[in-house]
């Protein structure tokens, strides 16, 4: 079985309000020493101005740092005033650039470390290629092309992505999913896709290779986690424009301050025009370095967080879009309800002994390996004490379920036992020459209305009764759906059930809408209609017939166990194949956007305090009266400027964990969320730097740095 978050596991989540499970599948600690080392080295490499150009804010800081350094060197040789101050300013400006680089490098390093692990598994093993004449030939897996057939036996590594054509095997997919429990792969159906790099544990399968070397899922996965294909998302680009624009405005304000202050100096007849080092300091403090330095780290970390949930997002855009989702299409089976229905009751028709019904139900289910079939056997045992019987004594032929007959059963000792859809069984009884009691339909309707599935049972021409199969809504699902509603997201249940059954389960789970007897086309139309009304839609899917809807949806989460077509159509793949995860993906998308907004707001709000530190310091000599703006009581003009610059640099480092982890997200309405975040990051952003700069000033003076 694929690893899924089983329901009891979900119930154990300590804080039911949190959508984000605390324990991540293969997370590393945030400050893993290996990652730290790698990131530190990278932050120096990133000083290359050509690379920094992409980040206008930090590029301006670097230009300012370079200018200050050049002037410092000039003064060192030519002799100038306050060399010590200049050295410190230059150093802290370089630190500002390095800290910003470090934040980005940290985010990238986590992905790179993961990519390295994946790459190690990509060994060029020998594959057993099947030739047209039926013989096997050993070929290096890198030589395989799409369309080749290979044989994979116990212990073999599957050489490439492909479809199982024949056979059944247990496969260890832990390389991809991080989950050690093996999964079953077999030909036909929705469990036929295998991934290169995974290992067959038992039995054998014949696989048709579907991708060329270098284009496999594993290759794509490595590229994605490594961030090699990372493109800026639309919102990130727009935010970049905003902060670049603000940078330009502050550049204007600071550059024009030079002539303006020279006018003021001559008008007042006192003081001097601020030095370049001080002007650069003011500029660096004003431009949004905090968000500028952390913006790309936030994006990468968002992707990484999705990854830690074992979801592979094909682009950052998909993660961003998931935050915007208005409508979630949730498959009933496996998402809202437990994957399997349970038999809960036998309803015996008038004139039938209960024992006859239970007996027939049990016999017809003995060969039925589906969870439903097994639950019938279990219920039979509980109701009537019937034990499993050795059918081998009898002459038994099992009739498997088919979509055409819509029933299954057994022919045993000339008895023809059948169970199946009410209509199918009614027809069967009539064909056998019997009468269908009208109570049968009555029972079936009653069960359907309660959200159950009726399973009629007949013994030849005699209808016996109905088994009540009940859908069990997953524990905690109702709460989750209520949370979604609070977030402004409509949840829509998709099911193949009839409208009556669907309505009952929809009511039990508390979803906003449902789509009963849904065909793939119905799903597609529903998505298009929602999108036409300006909503963004997310859905999960695994079958090939889900592909069009997955492609149409704004966020399409394909199951890893699903077919290749589904995986290609979606923009995310859940390696655990757990459809419930769609909800978590939405939460991560929101968290990503909130983190961006919070740090932007914080960054801009910070400027207020920095003005109060630097402006009086700059013009104290010209207009001593401006000292009244020094409300923090900073010691000297130099200590004030230095403290502001140091605060500005340190705040980047201080916020790295927040940028990487993301702002805490609570599933509440937008108004409440905004109020809370505005208070913390807006008002907090205005207030926090005042004590921050004051403390640094105290330290700077205490250490006799200025």
């Amino acid at each position, binding site marked *: 079985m694929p690893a899924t978050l089983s329901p009891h596991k979900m119930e154990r989540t300590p804080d039911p309000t949190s959508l984000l499970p605390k324990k991540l599948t293969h997370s590393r600690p945030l400050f893993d020493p290996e990652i730290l080392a790698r990131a530190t080295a990278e932050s120096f490499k990133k000083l290359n101005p050509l690379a920094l150009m992409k980040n206008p804010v930090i590029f301006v800081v670097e230009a300012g740092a370079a200018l200050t350094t050049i002037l410092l060197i000039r003064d060192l040789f030519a002799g100038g005033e306050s060399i010590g101050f200049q050295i410190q300013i230059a150093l802290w400006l370089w630190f500002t650039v390095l800290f910003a680089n470090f934040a980005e490098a940290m985010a990238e390093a986590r992905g790179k470390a993961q990519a390295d692990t994946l790459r190690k598994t990509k060994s060029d093993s020998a594959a057993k290629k099947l030739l047209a004449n039926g013989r096997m030939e050993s070929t290096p897996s890198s030589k395989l092309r799409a369309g080749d057939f290979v044989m994979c036996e116990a212990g073999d590594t599957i050489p490439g992505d492909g479809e199982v054509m024949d056979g059944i095997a247990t496969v260890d997919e832990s390389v991809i999913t991080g989950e050690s429990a093996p999964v079953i792969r077999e030909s036909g159906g929705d469990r036929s896709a295998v991934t290169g790099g995974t290992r067959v544990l038992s039995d054998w399968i014949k696989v048709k290779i579907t991708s060329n070397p270098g284009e496999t899922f594993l290759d794509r996965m490595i590229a994605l986690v490594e961030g090699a294909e990372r493109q800026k998302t639309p919102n990130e680009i727009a935010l970049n424009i905003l902060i670049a624009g603000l940078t330009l*405005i502050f550049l204007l304000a600071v550059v024009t301050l030079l002539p303006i202050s020279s006018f003021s100096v001559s*008008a007042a007849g006192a003081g001097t025009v601020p030095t370049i080092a001080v002007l650069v300091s003011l500029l660096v403090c004003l431009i949004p370095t905090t968000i500028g330095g952390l913006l790309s780290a936030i994006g990468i970390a968002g992707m990484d967080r999705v990854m830690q949930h074992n979801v592979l997002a094909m682009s950052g855009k998909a993660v961003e879009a998931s935050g915007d989702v208005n409508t979630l299409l949730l498959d009933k089976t496996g998402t809202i309800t437990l994957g399997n229905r349970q038999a809960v009751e036998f309803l015996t028709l008038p004139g039938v002994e209960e024992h006859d019904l239970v007996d027939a139900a049990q016999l017809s289910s003995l060969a039925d390996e589906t969870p439903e079939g097994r639950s019938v056997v279990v219920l039979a045992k509980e109701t009537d004490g019937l034990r499993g019987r050795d059918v081998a004594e009898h002459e038994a032929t099992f009739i498997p379920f088919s979509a055409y007959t819509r029933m299954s059963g057994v022919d045993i000792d000339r008895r023809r036992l059948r169970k199946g859809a009410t209509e199918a069984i009614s027809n069967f009884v009539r064909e056998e020459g019997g009468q269908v009691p009208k109570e049968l339909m009555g029972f079936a309707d009653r069960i359907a209305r309660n959200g159950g599935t009726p399973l009629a049972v007949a013994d030849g021409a005699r209808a016996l009764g109905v088994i009540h199969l009940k859908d069990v809504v997953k524990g905690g699902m109702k709460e989750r759906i209520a949370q979604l509603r609070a977030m402004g997201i409509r949840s829509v249940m998709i099911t193949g059930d009839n409208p009556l059954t669907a309505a009952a389960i929809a009511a039990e789970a508390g979803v906003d809408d449902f789509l009963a007897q849904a065909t793939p086309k119905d799903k597609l139309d529903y998505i298009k209609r929602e999108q036409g009304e300006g909503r963004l839609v997310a859905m999960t899917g695994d079958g090939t017939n889900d592909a069009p809807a997955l492609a149409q949806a704004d966020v399409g989460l394909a199951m890893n166990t699903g077919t290749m077509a589904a995986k290609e159509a979606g923009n995310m793949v859940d390696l655990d194949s757990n459809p419930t995860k769609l909800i978590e993906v939405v939460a991560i998308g*929101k968290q990503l956007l909130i983190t961006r907004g919070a740090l932007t707001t914080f960054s801009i709000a910070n400027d207020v305090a920095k003005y109060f530190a630097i402006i009086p310091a700059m013009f104290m000599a010209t207009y001593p009266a401006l000292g009244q703006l020094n409300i923090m009581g900073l010691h000297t003009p130099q200590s004030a400027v230095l403290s502001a610059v140091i605060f500005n640099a340190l705040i980047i480092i201080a916020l790295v964990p927040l940028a990487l982890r993301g702002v805490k997200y609570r599933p509440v309405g937008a108004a409440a969320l905004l109020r809370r975040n505005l208070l913390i990051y807006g008002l907090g952003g205005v207030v926090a730097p005042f004590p921050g700069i004051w403390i640094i000033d105290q330290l700077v003076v205490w250490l006799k740095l200025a």
Partner: protein
Amino acid sequence: MTTSGILQIVIYFLVILGVTKPMGSFMAKVYQGERTFLHKPLRWLEALLYKLTGVKETAEQRWTEYAGSVVAFSLASFLFTYVIQRAQAWLPFNPQRFGANNVSPDLAFNTAVSFVTNTNWQAYGGETTMSYFVQMAALAVQNFVSSAAGVAIAIAVVRGFSRQQSKTIGNFWVDLTRGIVYIFLPLCIVGALFLASQGVIQNFNEYTKVQTVEGGTQVIAQGPIASQEAIKMIGTNGGGFLNANSAHPFENPTPLTNFVEMLMIFLIPGGLTFTFGRMVGSPRQGWALFAAMSVLFLAGVFIAYAAEQSGNPILAKSGLESAPTELQAGGNMEGKETRFGIAATALFATITTGASCGAVNGMHDSFTPIGGMVPLFNIMTGEVIFGGVGAGLYGMLLFAIMAVFIAGLMVGRTPEYIGKKIEQKEVKMAMLAVIATAAAILVFTGISSVVPFEKGGYWNAPGPAAANINNDGPHGFSEMLYAYTSGAGNNGSAFGGINVNTPWYNLTIGLAMLVGRFLFLLPLVAAAGSLAAKKRVATTSGTFPTDGPLFVGLLVGTVLIIGALTFFPALSLGPIVEHFLMQGGKVF
């Protein structure tokens, strides 16, 4: 502050609050081509104008065509206004025989730009420079059309939000015509008649020379003032017929006319917030903008009023009574008309700079540093406190876009406003508009602070550009900063105390006005085009609510922070330090 002063301010605000809805819903009907009570008497005029100009009423324009029409119309208006000024000697209604020597090419350029951009910055004194014909045919006409153009652009921007998946944003020529015919003309006729009834003069006489009591002679300027006065206020133009503007008894004779003139300024800008709400299908959205404007407005009024009423501490220290009593207004009465007093002057100053009107009923230069900083800051924030007709609304929408973009992410969705996603294009355009105006103010002020000119030279006869200011220190700097701020903000009010009628100032302030008008409105029209093409996103409880107090607070904060962050260094070297120095006993 006195009870009567506070009461004047409160009553003023309540009246504006009261007229906003009827005015706004009337304008919404006009611009959406619906029937109003004026349809019957005036529809023929509208139809006639279309016939004469060949405008097809039902034709729609893409944003590029709309913007192109605005630019083409403004260019033609500029040339027309320029030529009439220079040619006034050969034109009628010129009893004082003003000629081309009164209007130098650089002054004519500056004035033409000023009136075409709805700035009405005046580097000249009306009664000593312009003939009645120029005042009426060139300047007053521009007062009408530049205002109507401003409202038209605002409506086009509103359509960006109200339409969806639309390639077009209306028709500039139709919007312009409707504004003039149904809104500006009727209002101005009523307004002019009222003002005339209160003593605002209207004649074509030669100036009267009179013997004063002291035995000297005085020339009393006059002219067709009432007709000009109404559009000056209603169109938030602000260019006075006379140099003293609304401080002059011929323009603004009584406290009642003063009150009505102030109402005229905010009438359309206030109403447009409701028009916006109505057109986007949610009046609450309009009221939210109204509320944000009101908060900023009332804060400004009371700061300015308090500063003016508390007056100059140096006088108080020297033992002079500066408290208001039965017999005196107290506070700082320098540069104020006794018939208006401190409250009505502070109120007028806040209104005229909150809106991009620029009419004055007192001298801003004589305000206390903080009292004078309020008008300055109002202009610096982009005149969105109700703002110029049209310009105030689209300016506030720009701030709404910025506010939503910065903080809207914090609800966990990509930002949206009125159901429209705010993306790359909108942010780019909003930033462009903000940068352009800031640059025009800061760069020109910076250059003028230091640029050396030869004394007696062509560009600036008094010498260096900074030599034109009449006061020392920070106050002198404020005068220069205010001039460029007023130009770039398309306000047109003068702080005064600076000689701006030199080629250097005429050219640079002219450029500042052009930048402030066109590099602000063109990006917004472009944004409107991109917004109109978008689908409307469904509103859910996950959507950032932009019609509640939280948004109002956010919007106010954004306006203040963006304004303050950009201009704090400049302000600190002007009014802020002047204030501290005054507290310490030094004035300039």
